[in-house]
């Protein structure tokens, strides 16, 4: 029995279809990674599921309650960590978190304990009395993340939790998100960061232009589209089509992804046999290889495969839109 279930969930903003007939099931206790390029509709989906905005069409059941007909019941189960921190500049981190804990119904002793421990965990304890407008971008984000960690809702929507956060902070937050899941929360993690989705999620879904392209465990997704092995070849200059055709002609090669004209990622089988062939092929074509290495497929490859875009292209596209 899924804890979240959407039925043709759609949101239109004037002429933009932000979310397009989304059908999605999320199981209790999992971390579900919602991936997609800018403007894919991740945040809009999260806002509809958390009853902040109403769907134009379709609906969703969250914890067995319909977001349209019974939003009050949904709001009792959920918590949301917004992509843009929603904090008033006149308040302090401590005020924001303390009030949040109260309104989410924590007992006095629990509230005091959790506010203090979470402020400490996200490294904001010493800044707790500063005005929000005096905090850096990453600090505001830490306060926003702390909200949901204090609330510990049954269903947590977490939108880009680590954008703007430094590397040490990122790992810390990832650990805390995992702990939240281990305590029994279901987590919907919207993110642009494929690595983040990969290390945290039990399953991921890739959205593009409001639609869900594909949805499975990161491992299955990686296995589904590619030859098992990957060879990355960096050349000193761009490879022409003739060479690429020749490369494609090798029977072990499954797919070639052009990251840049001089940077190729080749998905293939039987890596130990094929690497010498690849090296020879480039040497014959008078193309010097500046580096060559073998790697595991990543979610980047899955993303590129399904959206038909490289990450860079995807970002460029959504900017020109």
């Amino acid at each position, binding site marked *: 029995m899924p804890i979240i279930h959407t039925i043709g969930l759609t949101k239109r903003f004037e002429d933009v279809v932000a979310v397009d007939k989304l059908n999605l099931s999320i199981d209790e206790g999992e971390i579900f990674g919602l991936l997609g390029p800018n403007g894919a509709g991740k945040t809009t989906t999260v806002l509809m599921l958390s009853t*902040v905005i*109403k769907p134009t069409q379709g609906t969703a059941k969250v914890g067995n309650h319909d977001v349209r007909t019974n939003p009050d019941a949904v709001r009792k189960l959920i918590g949301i960590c*917004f992509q843009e921190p*929603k904090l008033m500049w006149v308040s302090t981190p401590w005020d924001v978190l303390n009030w949040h804990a*109260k*309104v989410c119904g924590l007992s006095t002793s629990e509230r005091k304990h959790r506010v203090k421990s979470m402020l400490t965990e996200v490294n904001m304890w010493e800044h707790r009395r500063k005005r929000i407008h005096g905090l850096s971008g990453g600090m505001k984000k830490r306060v926003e993340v702390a909200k949901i960690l204090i609330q510990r809702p049954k269903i947590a929507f977490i939108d880009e939790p680590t954008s703007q956060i430094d590397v040490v902070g990122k790992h810390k937050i990832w650990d805390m998100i995992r702990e939240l899941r281990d305590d029994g929360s279901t987590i919907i993690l919207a993110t642009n960061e494929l690595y983040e989705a990969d290390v945290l999620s039990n399953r991921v879904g890739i959205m593009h232009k409001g639609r869900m392209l594909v949805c499975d465990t990161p491992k299955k997704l990686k296995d589904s589209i590619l030859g098992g092995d990957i060879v990355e070849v960096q050349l000193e200059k761009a490879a022409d089509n003739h060479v690429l055709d020749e490369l494609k002609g090798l029977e072990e090669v499954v797919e070639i992804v052009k990251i840049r004209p001089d940077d190729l990622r080749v998905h293939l089988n039987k890596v130990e046999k094929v690497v010498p062939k690849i090296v020879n092929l480039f040497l014959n074509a008078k193309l010097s290889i500046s580096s060559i290495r073998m790697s595991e497929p990543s979610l980047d490859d899955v993303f590129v495969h399904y959206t038909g875009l490289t990450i860079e292209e995807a970002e460029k596209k959504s900017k020109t839109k």
Partner: protein
Amino acid sequence: MRPMRKILLVVERDLRRFIQYKFLVILRTIWFGAQVAFFGLIASRMVVPELADIYFEFYIAGVVIMMLYSSSVFIGYDIFEEAEHGVFEYLLSLPVSRRELVLGRSIGGGIRSFILVGPIIAITLAIIGWANLPNLLLAFTALFLFAFGVSGMSITIAVTLKSGDHFDIFMGVLSAFIVRLSTTMYPQAFVQDASQAYAILSQFNPVTYASDLFRWGTGIERYLTMSPMPLAALIGIVIFFFLFTLVGVTFYEKRLEGGGWQ
């Protein structure tokens, strides 16, 4: 959690925010001082000498209502600030119903203006005295409802217009109508003298109700207000409060989604 507790938490939040507007409190107090010391004292000279003292009292009672009105309107500006910071979406995601949210905010906005105007009410009462305790308590209850109602009205207008600039202009115009076409600053008899239409309009004005009730509580109504029986005013205030608190809920919910804030 019980609904009452949630409403109180929403109230608490607005009060906390308000305490941070120290500058505003200082400005308002200076404004009141200037109204009384300049306008009140000078304008009373224009009244026939035997009524000058009474007009002065009448006038400061009116200024209290004007202050209560303009401080209750203030919550609308908070809404824009919140829309700008996206805090709205946050409030909408909390385990608090829309009804509790609007009710809490109207009440919070009303209490805030009472805190702001409270010392001035005390000064006014010290100057003009009061009729008797039951009258005064009833008058206070009515003023509370008035302040909540004006806050609810301000919230409703803010979420309807969704533009800070438009709101600012609209509220300026509205206050010109609603305050001037009331008995805040002049007795009903004079409004009637000026125009029958004015008199009728001023009888359907919450600012008139609040002014009459406050004066009734202070005991000065027996000199200057037409209606000695405040029941109509009391009913008017109650209707005003319910109208804007309930209408506010509906609008708040309908207008919030989809953004479009300027």
